[in-house]
């Protein structure tokens, strides 16, 4: 009886995101006389896009299989290290940006097929504990291979400068990151709304009995879905390595904000993850400006406020990807 939301609604929402982000950027420009505030706003948006993309991957995996992937940050870190290993051996950055996430996906799929799959029928606590254990092991393995301290991983020279856009100039790498993440968000939305596989995925998330009716192989669906989530984490991992540094725990530091993003956006809502990410990013970076000591707590305060007003998160009550 319950039917999938028509694609047009999602396109509308997508347009709303773009307009909303545009409006936010406009505010950045308008406030650009106060350089500090506008810089922080812009940084907050970039950070928010990171949170959104990590949260999207988490949400996809969580919604379909009930797995809270505690190793999500470890996959990001892995992708970053793989890119670092390639670039430091002379590989082109752009090549590494594509290949490192794909290699990470291979590792991810192996983990999913061998370790996580047996747990799908069990309560979510088991896959949560398993991925938690994996993340502990991964952290130590990175530590052994690449050392406890961070490794230098900088963006290519072509992205090193700044780009002037009207009133203010942006660091080129941040602008590039914002662009890539935005493209990825758009691509995933299109994938879920416009392709047969994406539609099946959404249908499966809403009603697992429907997969059988659609004649889709559940296991393939789980695998591709997991791969998709890990790919998002992988790309974010490479970009984050260039922007925020790379050490054995660097991916994990993005995990908690991504959880908060999922909660604020409302579990199960793709749209919510995007809005939530931007809100968390902005809250964090603006608090850094005014009350640096409270920068981590800010997102939790935001979460508490949102949950008080809307107990299921901002978009939690709507259809799963609506």
């Amino acid at each position, binding site marked *: 009886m319950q039917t999938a939301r028509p694609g047009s609604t999602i396109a509308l929402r997508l347009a709303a995101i773009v307009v909303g982000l545009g409006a936010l950027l406009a505010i950045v420009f308008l406030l650009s006389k106060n350089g500090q505030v506008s810089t922080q706003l812009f940084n907050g948006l970039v950070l928010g896009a990171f949170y959104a993309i990590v949260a999207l991957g988490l949400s996809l995996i969580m919604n379909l299989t009930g797995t809270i992937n505690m190793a999500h940050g470890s996959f990001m870190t892995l992708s970053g290290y793989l890119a670092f290993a390639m670039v430091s051996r002379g590989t082109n950055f752009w090549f590494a940006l594509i290949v490192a996430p794909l290699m990470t996906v291979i590792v991810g799929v192996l983990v999913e097929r061998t370790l996580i799959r047996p747990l799908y029928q069990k309560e*979510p606590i088991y896959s949560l504990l398993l991925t938690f254990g994996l993340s502990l092991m991964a952290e130590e393995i990175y530590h052994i291979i690449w050392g406890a301290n961070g490794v230098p991983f900088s963006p290519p020279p072509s992205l090193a400068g700044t780009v002037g856009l009207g009133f203010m100039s942006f660091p080129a790498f941040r602008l590039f990151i914002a662009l890539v993440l935005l493209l990825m968000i758009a691509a995933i939305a299109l994938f879920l709304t416009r392709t047969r596989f994406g539609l099946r995925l959404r249908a499966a998330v809403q009603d697992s009995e429907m997969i059988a009716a659609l004649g889709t192989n559940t296991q393939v669906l789980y695998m591709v879905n997991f791969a998709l989530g890990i790919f998002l984490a992988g790309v974010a991992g490479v970009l984050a390595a260039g922007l925020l540094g790379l050490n054995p725990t660097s991916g994990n530091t993005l995990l908690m904000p991504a959880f908060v993003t999922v909660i604020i956006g409302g579990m199960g809502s793709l749209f919510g993850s995007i809005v939530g990410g931007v809100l968390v990013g902005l809250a964090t970076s603006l608090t850094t400006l005014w009350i640096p000591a409270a920068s981590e707590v800010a997102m939790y305060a935001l979460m508490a406020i949102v949950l008080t007003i809307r107990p299921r998160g901002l978009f939690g009550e709507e259809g799963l990807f609506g």
Partner: protein
Amino acid sequence: MRFGPTRLITVGVVILLALAPFLSPLIHVDISIVNEVLLFTLAAMSANLLLGYTGLPPFGNAAFFGLGTYGAGLSIKYFHVNFIEATLLGTAAALLGALVVGPFLVRRRGIYFGLLSIAFGQVFYFIAYRFTDVTGGEDGMNFARPYLGISNFHVTLHGSGFYYLTLVVFVASILAFKLLVESPFGRTLVAIRQNEVRVRYLGLDSNRFVFVAILISATMAGLGGALFGMLNNFAWPLLMDWHQSGDFVLSVILGGSGTIWGPLLGSAIYVIGKDIISSYTNLWQIFIGALFVACVLGFPRGILGSILARFGTAPLSNESEEANWTQSPAIAADHHG
């Protein structure tokens, strides 16, 4: 639990624990480590109440444990209270923390509960981490172990003295826990774990039960945390981190969730194992991680759970076919009205 083998086990375990100060040197384990096991177990039991009996994944119980530690530590450092007062204040701090975050958690189930408990637990971690002036921040906070506080009995407990005090608290807690889970209230919690919709359609406000379970759980964790703080004379933020919560949950699953003694078994393996491994290698985190993986894949019912299942007195299994991922509408419907 019927009497017979289980009562025998109970008596055996208590005797073993009572002899621990004499036995532990034989395996080159300091009594403070055994002491740590008992306090760790209190936290694991608090997680077990939610996980094994109520069916909620508690990933923020380290925050309550840490609130106990900081509550005791801060009151010793700034108000110079005695041992008993510090214990009570630490426990009260955890209860207070649960009263604040409980309302946010109480309507959530499944992974949503897990996520929220992680997130709200981290709030306390960051407060301890950032309020450097008061808490010492990342470096942690030292404080002296206070006098016991019983008049005419002016002593500070050390070594096995402290251990026996802990043991008394521990045995009392186990007894209280057993009475609780076998009480009508505890049985209702078990029913909620099995089928919350039906509990509500028997006219019971399940949220009320869950809320009280969270408060009791936090209080137990806080009690353990307060004593843990005074055992080490130290409090540090990582105690409240979600990794610590994960270790508590692991200990529950490892020993056997939904059993009385499972958390003790799991905690003993975890704490003593970690102590031994870390004396050989600083890569202990790999072993702990592998322990998680092995436990989940190898014996998901836990050691005690598997043994009990073999002898027919199956504990509450945690492997329902239909995982309660998100929240059922029957519960959701509540907060409109």
